[in-house]
């Protein structure tokens, strides 16, 4: 880990001591969004597969965990692994279907699959309680540590986020990660070099859905409530926006992007109540003006301005 990363981590750990509860909660939400965006980035950035259905995994794991604890009365020690497992298995199946295609076909299939999951969330009232959502949920208490207060939960999320990002960094720099990027850039060539391109993509899809499920658990613990709208295309699009805005296929990009999107969303919902429209405009703006993402895009812009002055 670089020194700057360690410094950032120290600042993040210290955050609850120098900022109010509102910002601590906002920071927790940003970290959860960062995990979610980073998991989507495995597909979008490293596999070159633009998914518009990632919210399914966040929502499924949140709902499964909520349902198991409310209706089955199970404790967190059981609901968490069960939710992760069931969601990952769904990822196995959805990946198998969506990867029948690549490119735009993949995008459309992931969107269609997630719309079905979203529709189920609204209509399968017996299980999901429909538009009323499921409430009365609790946070886990790992090793007897109570996570009810904001700071404690923030630290918990910070630990998980750090772990997830380290795992992702390991993954993309591994031999498997290198082959994944190879399938993104030259799938035909990879296949003739002896790689099972489909298998590599599928494994990545499943891994991304697992990490999406981790974000889902953190999300439902944070809110102690779950509503079908978390599975909507809006949530998938927010994560995609974070990935693209930050810079897809980079480790820091989605984290920066998630922070920007969450801050913007927070600002927009507090003052103008027009988050969807704002997000739409940002989407169009990023795609047209800074397709490489804000971080690389700004650098390029500055370079061009600098070059122009000479």
């Amino acid at each position, binding site marked *: 880990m670089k020194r700057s990363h360690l410094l950032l981590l120290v600042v993040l750990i210290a955050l609850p001591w120098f900022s109010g509860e509102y910002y601590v909660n906002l920071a927790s939400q940003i970290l959860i969004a960062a995990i979610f965006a980073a998991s989507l980035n495995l597909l979008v950035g490293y596999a070159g597969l633009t998914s518009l259905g990632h919210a399914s995994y966040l929502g499924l794991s949140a709902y499964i965990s909520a349902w198991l604890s409310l209706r089955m009365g199970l404790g967190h020690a059981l609901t968490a692994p069960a939710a992760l497992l069931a969601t990952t298995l769904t990822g196995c199946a959805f990946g198998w*279907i969506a990867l029948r295609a690549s490119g735009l076909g993949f995008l459309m*299939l992931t969107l269609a699959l997630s719309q*079905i999951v*979203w*529709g189920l969330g609204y209509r399968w009232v017996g299980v999901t309680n429909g538009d009323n959502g499921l409430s009365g949920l609790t946070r886990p208490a790992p090793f007897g540590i109570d996570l009810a207060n904001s700071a404690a939960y923030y630290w918990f999320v910070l630990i998980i986020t750090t772990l997830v990002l380290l795992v992702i960094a390991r993954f993309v720099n591994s031999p498997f990660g290198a082959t994944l990027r190879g399938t993104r850039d030259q799938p035909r060539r990879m296949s003739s070099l002896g790689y099972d391109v489909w298998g590599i993509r599928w494994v990545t899809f499943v891994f991304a859905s697992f990490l999406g499920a981790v974000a889902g658990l953190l999300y439902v613990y944070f809110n102690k409530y779950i509503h079908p709208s978390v599975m909507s295309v809006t949530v998938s*699009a927010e994560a995609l926006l974070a990935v693209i805005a930050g810079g897809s296929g980079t480790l820091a990009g989605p984290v920066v992007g998630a922070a920007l999107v969450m801050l913007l969303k927070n600002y927009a919902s507090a003052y103008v109540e027009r988050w969807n*429209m704002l997000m*739409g*405009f940002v989407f169009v703006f990023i795609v*047209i003006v800074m397709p490489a993402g804000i971080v690389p895009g700004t650098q390029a812009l500055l370079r061009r301005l600098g070059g122009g002055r000479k």
Partner: protein
Amino acid sequence: MQFWQIQTLNSFALGGLLFLLSSGFALIFGLMRIANLTHGALFMLGAYVAVSAMRAGFGLALAALIAALAVAAVGGLIERLVLRRLSGNAQGQVLATLGLSFIASDFCLIVWGGDTIPIQTPAMFQAPLRLFGLIFPTYRLVVVGIAIVVGVVLYLLMERTRLGAMIRAGVDDMQMARAVGIRASALFTIVFCLGALLAGLGGAVGGPIFSAYPGLDSDMLSLALIVVILGGIGSLVGTFVASFIIGFIYTFGTALLPDLAYVILFLPMVIVIAFRPTGLFGTIKT
């Protein structure tokens, strides 16, 4: 008996509306090779414009015409102002249409509010039709009729006109079409407007059945995606057949198993994709 008969007619009516919705999507996809994710929003916009037109005193027929033309104009603006800037970047275009769909749906929320607005069935179609001792809701028959007329017109347009020949050439091979002097730029705008027009018309004609409500865009986009994936992306015949298949499955699914209607929608799509990744009638493998 009455149940099956009504639901069958409902299925046909939904199938017809899905065809209006999806045929535009399929046309745009076939020619421009992009998935137009604003399509659901354009459908919803059609419904809302019809609401306003009817409030201004127009009948549904005229309101539907106004809605179709207004939405076509919006489609033209989208193509000219946004998609044009991203030509050659299919993924960028699709993401731009996604962004535009959020803008459009929020726009509708601002203008028409968050409550469901019912659209009156025209008086002349309100009385049920009695045929062979069976009772039919007349308007549903009208919707099926409109869908069939649109289908025939589209078929004639594609197969019998110069414009259709140019579109077909572009669908087959855009570069070749350019080489023989077809102006792709104009063709793209025309097809995008046409696709939007069909979506807007669908929204207005479907108004008395669906009403206009926030979220209509998302519901319709899902159904359009399922239809085109099932029918084969870019195939008009496939879209026609798949629209009615989905119309039946969704109508009966909702009536018999309301909780799980969405899962039932999902099954035919999965089965077809598993065995034929190009869809039932498709030739484009994406």
